[in-house]
């Protein structure tokens, strides 16, 4: 099966510091692929390159058969990649509903139809009952779900989630995991996520990539990867594997 997203030898330097060091991997359609690693390993930089925030210095990124490296963020979204931000960025004075409508408007010019799609997504993310609330009044878990809902409303084929579990309590983490698994199962949505919360990674991911100092040090099924000595040493620590 050809990969939906193919990262091929992508590298990025910031004034002498190698943030991403010739990373290559592929994400199959319908997969949930996790990128893990210590802080500063280059995970968010990699994300930002895929999302179009800055171009790679070297390498290629192919999505659905076409090259997307060098495209601007709005163009990347139009190609079918949605993303969330590590520090959530809701539209604060707008309602939850309006936030999602703005996402839905990408492929639906009529606000009335966009609103219908927004309602669908709000149901999926369990936010329908709060749709008239102002986004700035939401709690953090709700804001995280809003961020996902908004990106989802753009009908992406691939969803990039940047530490979407950060700051959530275990119960809320499980809730988010359940929602994401349901979306993946029912709609075939491909997900690429950065995560530190191993509980979520083990539950969600079909495949894991480990980054360290910008380079890939392990890739494979979650159970196998977390046992690799290099991974244990650089990131997880011996206790985590027990």
């Amino acid at each position, binding site marked *: 099966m050809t990969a939906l997203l193919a990262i091929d030898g992508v590298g990025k330097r910031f004034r002498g510091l190698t943030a991403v060091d010739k990373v290559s991997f592929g994400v199959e359609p319908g997969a949930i692929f996790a990128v893990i690693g210590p802080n500063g390993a280059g995970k968010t930089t990699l994300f930002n390159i895929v999302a179009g925030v800055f171009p790679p210095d070297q390498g290629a990124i192919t999505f659905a058969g076409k090259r997307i490296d060098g495209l601007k963020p*709005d163009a990347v979204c139009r190609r079918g990649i949605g993303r969330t931000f590590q520090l959530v960025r*809701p539209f*604060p004075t707008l309602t939850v509903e309006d936030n999602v*409508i703005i996402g839905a*408007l*990408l492929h639906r010019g*009529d606000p*009335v139809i966009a609103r219908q799609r927004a309602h669908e997504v709000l149901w999926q993310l369990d936010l329908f009952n709060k749709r008239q609330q102002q986004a700035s009044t939401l709690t953090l878990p709700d804001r995280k779900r809003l961020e996902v809902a908004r*990106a989802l409303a753009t009908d992406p084929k691939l969803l990039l989630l940047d530490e979407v579990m950060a700051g959530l309590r275990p119960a809320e983490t499980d809730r988010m995991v359940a929602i994401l698994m349901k979306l993946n199962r029912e709609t075939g949505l491909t997900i690429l996520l950065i995560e530190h919360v191993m509980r979520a990674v083990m539950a969600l991911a079909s495949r894991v990539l480990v980054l360290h100092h910008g380079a890939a040090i392990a890739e494979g099924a979650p159970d196998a990867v977390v046992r690799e000595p290099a991974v244990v040493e650089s990131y997880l620590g011996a206790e985590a594997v027990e």
Partner: protein
Amino acid sequence: MIDWLLEGVPRRGLVLLAGLLAVLIAAPWLANDYLITVLIIILYFAYTGQAWNVMMGFAGQLSLGHAIYVGIGGYAAAALYVHFGVGPWIGLPAAIAIAMICGAIIGFLAFRFGVGGVYFAILTIAFAEFARIGFDHFRWVGGSSGFFLPVANYARNDLWNLRGNPTMFYYVMLALTVAAFILCHALLKSRVGYYWQAIREDEVAARSLGINTFRYKMYAVVISAGMTSIAGVFFAFYYNNLFPEQVFHISRSIELILGPIIGGIGTLFGPIIGAFLLTGLSEMMQELLARLGFDVPGAKQVFYGVCLLLVVMVLPGGVWPWIARKLGLTGRQS
């Protein structure tokens, strides 16, 4: 169409609006000439404030040089009339087009090169100043000595050439203001309006949702410029003279933004309420001062400054949202 426009607007609000409109239409029969001229000024500021609001309140770009579009619209239409005998309604598209091009240039320079915030504001001031000095040297339209339109007798109303008594101008301005209001309401409820609000709230997040922020910011600037230039055409034919020193001066640009800021940036009614409050109160103040025997040039501006200061310190969202809450009128987006 009407349904969609009216959706989300509370019944009480519609009734009040209809009432206000009825009063305004009947005004020439109810009020004396002086009051009509005051109302013309109020509506003029409500209109230009609404046009400015499209850029600031909707798309979040602060323009402190908006008088440039008034001037361009006025001079374009006036030049066509004086030099070629072209009536204002025919000259209007030309005036709008030139203003839109000017707006597009400013917008392009600013957005393509990432000039935002305070730098953008300074850029707009500089452009307006550039126009002021430039037109001072522009002989073909009178230069610094001014440009004059032939004043016909006011016995008959000539709507085609916009020559007539104040009542005619009043209805023209009223029609423009109502049209602007409806246009802005429709824009806000459309995809463009939603995208503008997204850009205003968080441009980075907006881009991540596929919004071409450059294009939509350009729309805001160009539409705002075009709308404002129509007021310029009105200005030229109502006052019958244009001086670069006055038309392009920074105080005109500041005057223009007082209504929407005091009334409420980003709201539909803000500019209108702001214009009524500001002009109404300042006229009353001038009357009072005149009766007390003071003739103080600059007092009106100090008054405006104090109002602005109070609003921005105490009611930063503007007077209208506060009033709307009190009247129980909060709909979805008013």
